[in-house]
């Protein structure tokens, strides 16, 4: 018994290490664009190119975090209103997506794009909603390229748009996400 114990502890230790040795792909420079423009009015469009994301290549679990202050608009006043009045970014500084790519496996990735369905939740303005979308993925130069586009409605996230500007902002916001994830 005495002799077995050290072996057992070594085996257990090795098992915990393999548990940690999951393959992860990460980025800190992902890009999210959104547009809520209405034709013939001022363009309502912003871009955030400091979005973080992690993909667990073994399980297909994916998480992404965007800082609301990181969204840049062409018009400074629009950016100010976006932060102060609509997103209330001092109170809710981040938007988070968490979920799983269904049926994901690293072996399925190649230079040509493969589609996966993503199921998870999105949290914006402190409100969580289910999110289902199609993600196109490809493996290019050892990096995982991920692209997705989906539509969000401000009202689902308790974001109130005053009636005076509501005809200048679309009810449906088109969000596009682009990630180039490299192995950690």
């Amino acid at each position, binding site marked *: 018994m005495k002799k077995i114990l050290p072996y057992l502890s070594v085996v257990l230790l090795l098992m915990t290490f393999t548990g940690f040795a999951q393959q992860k792909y990460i980025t800190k420079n992902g890009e999210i664009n959104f547009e809520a423009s209405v034709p013939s009015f001022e363009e309502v469009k912003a871009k955030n190119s*400091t979005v973080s994301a992690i993909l667990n290549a073994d399980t297909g679990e994916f998480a992404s975090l965007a800082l609301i202050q990181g969204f840049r608009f062409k018009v400074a006043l629009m950016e100010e209103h976006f932060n102060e009045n609509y997103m209330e970014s001092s109170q809710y500084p981040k938007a988070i997506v968490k979920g799983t790519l269904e049926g994901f496996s690293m072996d399925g990735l190649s230079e040509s794009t493969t589609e996966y369905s993503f199921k998870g939740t999105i949290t914006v303005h402190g409100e969580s909603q289910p999110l289902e979308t199609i993600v196109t993925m490809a493996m290019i130069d050892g990096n995982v390229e991920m692209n997705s586009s989906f539509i969000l409605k401000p009202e689902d996230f308790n974001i109130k748009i005053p009636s005076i500007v509501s005809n200048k902002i679309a009810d449906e916001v088109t969000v596009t996400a682009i990630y180039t994830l490299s192995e950690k």
Partner: protein
Amino acid sequence: MKKKSVFMIVTLVLVVGAYSGYRYLYKDHRNIAEEDAVFTGTAQQIQERFAQGEGDGLLNQTVIVSGTVSQVEEGSVTLDEKVQSVFAQMPSVSEGAQVTVKGRCIGYDDLFEVVKLDQSQLTTQ
């Protein structure tokens, strides 16, 4: 004569009003480079502040952070694995260099436990 001066005044008010309205709607973005920093310190210090949940006062504020470059990526530099600084114009720096950056603090990223800055530039201060 009186009619004419009233007309002149009304026109002037309209022009000034339209101009200031335009200036308000289409004002320039902030110039972070010229703003005074509300925080000056090391990457470690600012990260700890956010990790302890006391960083809210720094959101959207201009900060000056110094540290050692731990990672160089396209468009951004990470200091001591604690602060990611995004540059509009990427300077030529290499890993291991001791630098000081001035930028706008946009918040704390819990995924990687880094504080993010944008509109950064290298500074000698």
